[in-house]
């Protein structure tokens, strides 16, 4: 497969791994956070840790959209699912995520209408097909996904579709990275920045990470050769700056049209991140002119007060302060079939990656 096979080529990967070994200063530790969930997954899937020197410590970051979604959001979605006049349309990974008291999967078993969709186009089609019911799309995800959700709202308005709305839980990346850079508990030397988020927002929104917080930054693709090359670039960087490894996709300025459609439909707001708390300007809400498409405004969901399992350390795992194995629940009570925390649910979650792929002998 073009653009995939070349980046999984064993010779190239071996060469990059040996260049990393030569470039590292054996006397120091490199704490590198791979921000995106797909990075985390592919690091495990291709066994990349086994190719790195022990002083390169890869920390899994907050870039799995499901994992950073707080219980409160899920509780609202489940509350909405309980109404007879609502069909919930959701991406697959949200399906099994536990909220405070239930999960969408359990609600579906009870007979509530919950449909898995692969895109917002599918969700809109569902709304057209079921004019007597409301289709609520669960809007989860970062800048990669948000433009498609914005477009679905714009399309619904244009077509006069009245039975479609979005439960907005979208988050944006740079403010969360700022919170990580400022957190004294988290010691990160460099970031592998999310390639596809950057395809939309460009490189400029990260410059502060290098300038103000002295973090080495590389915008990184997702294939094994991408990830290794980016690690090499982080290791070699003398003065912290934002470099682009994923040049085949990213133009420095990102995608103007995608950003435009985000701005048209959404505005910045504070957002609650699971495990990280409320972060200023890190989320989005639907603008008042599109309030007819805002499930929060339309239905005012009122679930019971959210609660978290106190023993679950997903919060610290997301921040990279702790590893899944530090959790008392990991692998015992919490596993991919009955996950306690969100990091176990999403295929891109850190706990799930450790559970599935870790090479224990």
């Amino acid at each position: 497969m073009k653009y995939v096979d070349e980046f999984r080529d064993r010779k190239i990967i071996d060469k990059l791994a040996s260049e990393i070994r030569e470039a590292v200063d054996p006397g120091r530790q490199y704490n590198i956070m791979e921000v995106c969930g797909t990075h985390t997954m592919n690091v495990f899937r291709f066994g990349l840790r086994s190719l790195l020197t022990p002083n390169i410590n890869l920390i899994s970051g907050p870039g799995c959209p499901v994992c950073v979604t707080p219980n409160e959001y899920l509780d609202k979605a489940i509350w909405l699912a309980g109404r007879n006049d609502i069909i919930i349309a959701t991406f697959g990974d949200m399906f099994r995520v536990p909220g405070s008291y239930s999960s969408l999967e359990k609600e579906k078993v009870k007979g509530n209408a919950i449909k898995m969709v692969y895109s917002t186009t599918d969700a809109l089609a569902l709304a057209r097909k079921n004019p007597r019911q409301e289709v609520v799309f669960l809007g989860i995800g970062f800048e990669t996904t948000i433009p498609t959700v914005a477009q679905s709202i714009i399309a619904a308005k244009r077509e006069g579709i009245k039975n479609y709305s979005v439960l907005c839980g979208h988050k944006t990346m740079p403010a969360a990275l700022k919170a990580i850079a400022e957190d004294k508990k988290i010691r990160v030397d460099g970031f592998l920045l999310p390639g596809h988020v950057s395809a939309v927002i460009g490189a400029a929104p990260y410059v502060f990470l290098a300038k103000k917080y002295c973090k080495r930054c590389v915008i990184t693709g997702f294939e094994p050769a991408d990830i290794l090359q980016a690690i090499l670039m982080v290791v070699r960087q003398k003065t912290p700056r934002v470099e682009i490894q994923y040049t085949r996709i990213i133009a420095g300025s990102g995608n103007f049209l995608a950003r435009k459609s985000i701005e048209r439909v959404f505005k910045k707001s504070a957002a609650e991140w699971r495990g990280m708390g409320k972060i200023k300007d890190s989320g989005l809400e639907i603008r008042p002119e599109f309030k007819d498409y805002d499930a929060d405004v339309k239905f005012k969901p009122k679930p019971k007060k959210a609660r978290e399992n106190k023993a679950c350390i997903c919060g610290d795992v997301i921040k990279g302060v702790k590893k899944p194995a530090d959790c008392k629940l990991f692998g015992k009570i919490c596993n991919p079939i009955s996950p306690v925390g969100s990091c176990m649910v999403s295929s891109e979650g850190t706990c799930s990656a450790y559970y599935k792929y870790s090479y224990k002998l």
Partner: protein
Amino acid sequence: MHDLIDSVFIGKFDNKILRRKDDSAVFNVGKKRIAFTTDSYVVNPIFFPGGDIGSLAIYGTVNDLSVCGARPLAISLGLIIEEGLDRNVLEKIAASIADAAKRSGVDIVTGDTKVVEKGSCDKIFINTSGIGEVYYGGLSLERIKSGDVVIVSGSVGKHAVSVLSKREGMEFRTKTKSDSAPLNGLIFNILKVSNKVRFMRDPTRGGLATTLNEIVEGRNFGISVDEKDVPVSGGVREACEMLGFDPLYMACEGRAIVIAAKEDAKNILNAMRRNKKGRIAAVIGQITKEHKGRVILNTRAGGKRSLDMLAGEQLPRIC
């Protein structure tokens, strides 16, 4: 599912044959060694590229018998039909069943039909049981030794991708047809050229990775698999890349995993490749003394990781 079977059923029905948890039960009737198996089919959609629920129900049972070294002899057919199912659909499925039985060289010798209220089942459910005569004794997990090779008969995951793309109405650039097919001919060819075949399975639900895990579970050997050697078609890779799935966990319905002595690998491969269903058969790994009870994958990228039993279904991801 595995836990469910172990905790609810195995204990209550406990007996020597069941405990082996093979694809078919193998036991003696008089002096004859017999294989006996049953399986139910509830696939949605009932028609998919490369097959349908009818042919699937025949091939599934034929394959379960074949991998136990048995020649399939007779099959029973139980149908549970949802009230209101179009007669033409039923005719089409019946024709497909007849054709599949003919292609596999088995007779359907008994059957049962029930019609249930609308909503009590999804269009049609089929159960088939089959008996076969064992012509190659001694296939057993106990015979597997370190150094043995693991062979797969063809590219993995096509059935799952075919069903998924039809069910979800997804168009991929390369159309993938289900691999659903009878394996008795291919397996006969294999067993003719080697008496050092240790064990066989057809990887269905949960795919190659799940079946390999079932093989090593609780054993004093492990399996190491070379990712680069596992045949995966372009269409399956494309679909999996798109959805965030791992082809190694995608279901097959016409593939065999063969574990055999290394010295016979070449003969077996040649025999397989002469058969249309084994044209791209390949050695994908070996039995190891190390990491007992585990499957380890040597990744295409040169790394190593564990290839565990899949927990739950694979869910498509957000981005």
